[in-house]
């Protein structure tokens, strides 16, 4: 059973938790990436790498308008086209228009979370353009009719056993657990698509402002095929995905690949600076760069610029005990894990659309400690929770309970009174089940459904203390 990403949050969590295959797939994938990242960061001065990358990205955010204009100038100088898109709808419309003008029938894509964010595939398919995902993970979930569940490992929720079954059914190959055989089957199928595609669509891990270059980082080489074989290449990037110089690109590349997969360098780094020129033997005839806002400027204005430092490496997902427990689909958004819990509500027109996500964290801070740009994710989650309260998205019973709690804690007398009351009530409940409380009334039954709760003390610490002081004074 898989997770229905359109179901309500509680339902999604329930589905995720009751799927043991999903649990073991996510556990395997994240454990591997956590260990690889730790080794790769230990092999260099990881702390310095993180500090430098953060400084560079902070510079980018402070100089965003100038850098974007510099990028635009240089892309144009290289013979490319630059399009600005306010939101997903506009970006999709631009891509459709480019496709229409170039009589595109088939699109091959390399992995891009930004195009997932704006649902570009659905928009193209609605106009009868065939879209083929060529990243192995994306290809698998496209065959399965699912969405990516991880920023860098889209198929983190599937075990090799599940993939084998899927390929057997969809590609008509014998069942096998040999990764090489599965890969070869996908490769054979994809090769045909590359050669017959009219347009290649890629994301952009980062663009270099000073050279007008779009960089994508892959391990399969599909990215290079997408950006060089078809007649038209369209790259889609969020406004924050850029670096000032080539030197900065090398820095970000280090931080990104070490944090994402624990590689010193990904197998491929594809750099595209415009369409093919007259002296080039191959390459696309047209190059288009779409620069997408889609809520990012709003994020900056709302003082959440910290979240815009993100490199989309996925390290926070891998380390997050919540992500590891429920996987990505339970978040019900393109972006999952701690960074997804922060940016999903911020990118949405209304934060309340994802109001459960900022609470889907224990604030354990493990994410902050692996982030290559040291984003203070727990702090951002706390800020979002505060926004949701101010914006009226918090449930009324919770509000009343918090008020009552504050009132009880606002004076010694009321605190002691509440303590006595809790002691009497909890001991009465505990006496029903011999020692510990096995049942609490709603909403606290959420605790006792799986856990006992101890009764409050009959003699509080403060009573012990006062008695002790009294005895001492008498002596």
């Amino acid at each position, binding site marked *: 059973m898989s997770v229905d990403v359109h179901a309500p949050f509680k339902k999604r*969590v*329930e589905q995720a*938790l009751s799927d043991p295959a999903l649990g073991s797939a996510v556990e395997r994938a994240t454990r591997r990436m956590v260990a690889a990242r730790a080794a790769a960061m230990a092999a260099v001065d990881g702390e310095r790498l993180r500090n430098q990358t953060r400084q560079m990205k902070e510079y980018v955010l402070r100089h965003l308008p100038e850098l974007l204009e510099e990028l635009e100038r240089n892309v144009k100088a290289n013979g490319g086209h630059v399009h600005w898109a306010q939101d997903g709808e506009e970006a999709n419309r631009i891509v459709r228009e480019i496709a229409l003008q170039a009589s595109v029938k088939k699109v091959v894509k390399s992995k891009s979370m930004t195009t997932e964010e704006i649902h570009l595939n659905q928009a193209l398919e609605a106009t009868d353009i065939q879209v083929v995902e060529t990243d192995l993970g994306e290809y698998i979930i496209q065959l399965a009719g699912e969405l990516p569940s991880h920023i860098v490992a889209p198929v983190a929720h599937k075990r090799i056993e599940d993939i084998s079954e899927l390929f057997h059914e969809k590609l008509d190959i014998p069942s096998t657990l040999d990764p090489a055989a599965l890969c070869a089957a996908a490769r054979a199928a994809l090769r045909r698509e590359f050669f017959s595609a009219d347009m290649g669509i890629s994301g952009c891990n980062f663009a270099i402002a000073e050279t007008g270059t779009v960089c994508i980082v892959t391990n399969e080489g599909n990215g290079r095929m997408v950006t060089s074989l078809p007649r038209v290449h369209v790259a889609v990037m969020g406004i924050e995905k850029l670096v000032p110089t080539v030197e900065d690109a090398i820095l970000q590349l280090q931080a990104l690949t070490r944090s994402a997969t624990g590689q010193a360098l990904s197998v491929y780094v594809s750099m595209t600076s415009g369409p093919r020129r007259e002296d080039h033997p191959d390459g696309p005839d047209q190059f288009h760069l779409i620069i997408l806002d889609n809520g990012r400027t709003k994020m900056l204005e709302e003082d959440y610029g910290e979240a815009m430092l993100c490199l989309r490496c996925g390290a926070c997902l891998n380390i997050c*005990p*919540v992500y590891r*427990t*429920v996987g990505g689909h339970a978040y019900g958004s393109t972006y999952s894990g701690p960074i997804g819990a922060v940016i999903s509500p911020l990118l949405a027109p209304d934060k309340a659309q994802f109001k459960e996500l900022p*609470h889907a*964290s*224990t*604030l*354990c*801070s*493990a994410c902050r*400690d692996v982030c290559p740009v040291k984003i203070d994710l727990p702090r951002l989650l*706390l800020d979002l*929770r*505060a*926004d*949701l*309260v101010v914006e009226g998205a*918090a449930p009324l019973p*919770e*509000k009343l309970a*918090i*008020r009552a*709690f*504050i009132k009880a*804690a*606002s*004076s*010694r007398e009321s*605190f002691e009174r509440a*303590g006595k009351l*809790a*002691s009497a009530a909890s001991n009465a409940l505990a006496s029903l*089940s*011999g*020692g*510990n409380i*096995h049942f609490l009334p709603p*909403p*606290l039954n*959420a*605790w006792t*459904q*799986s*856990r*006992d*709760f*101890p009764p*409050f*003390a009959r003699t*509080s*610490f*403060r*009573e*012990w*203390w*006062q008695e002790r002081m009294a005895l001492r004074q008498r002596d």
Partner: protein
Amino acid sequence: MDKKTFATRPKRVALFATCMVDLIYPSVGIATTELLERQGLEVIFPLEQTCCGQPAFNAGYREEARELARRFLDVFGPMVETGQVDAVVAPSGSCVTMTSHFYPLLFQEAKQLELQRRAERLAAATFELTEFLVDVLGVKDMGARLEGRLTYHACCHLLRELGVDEQPQTLLAHVEGAELVALPDYDECCGFGGLFAVKNAPISTAMGQRKVVNLEKSGADRVALCDVSCMTHLNGLLSRQGVSCRAVHIAEVLNNQVGRLAPPEEPPAEEPEKPRRWQDVGAEQ
């Protein structure tokens, strides 16, 4: 934020017991008091203290949390400012994180700069218990004894906000008679997370279950930790499932308050149905 440094050994400390210890686990407060007194310190427990407000803050209720932050500052601030005490000590990494890290932010956000400055000053003199024992007093061996296999779970706020990790482990390493065993993923969150444990109970439980599995793998009879909140969550799971391992607060271990291991809690025996009165009547006849 720099912690206060001491030119001479501190003499008097204020005990910030935390509301959970005060009302649910007084034995942890007693242990903390006695441990500090055995180090020759005078301990003062200001009776005006209540709760630090963390539940409200974590749920997003900033105004409400600020009320309790101001109150806490009124109770403990003057004690430090006037030199009545040299430090504030609490048996909790989480509550110290609230008062030390988040109070200054709360006041800064409300542009209450004087309160922010006072909160920062108080934060510099506020210590989690094991941090205070090891870093300030320079103690490693509290002279404790405990039978059985013991392990350590690092609570998140203590580890990642306060950066306290070696201190409790050093103290535990000196507990005589205890066999220290390693807990796999000892630094992974137990799944408590405050209101998270109720709001997202199924996830919280599943996360706690991983900890339970790791505790079983470790073979430990007891797992020591520095926060009673995480302790409540873990013991709630362990007791419900009839697993004999128990979480204990480190202060109780160090103060020799942890007794012999109790046999696993039996499910409550079905009470034999009492004879009805008319049956009694019949029996007498």
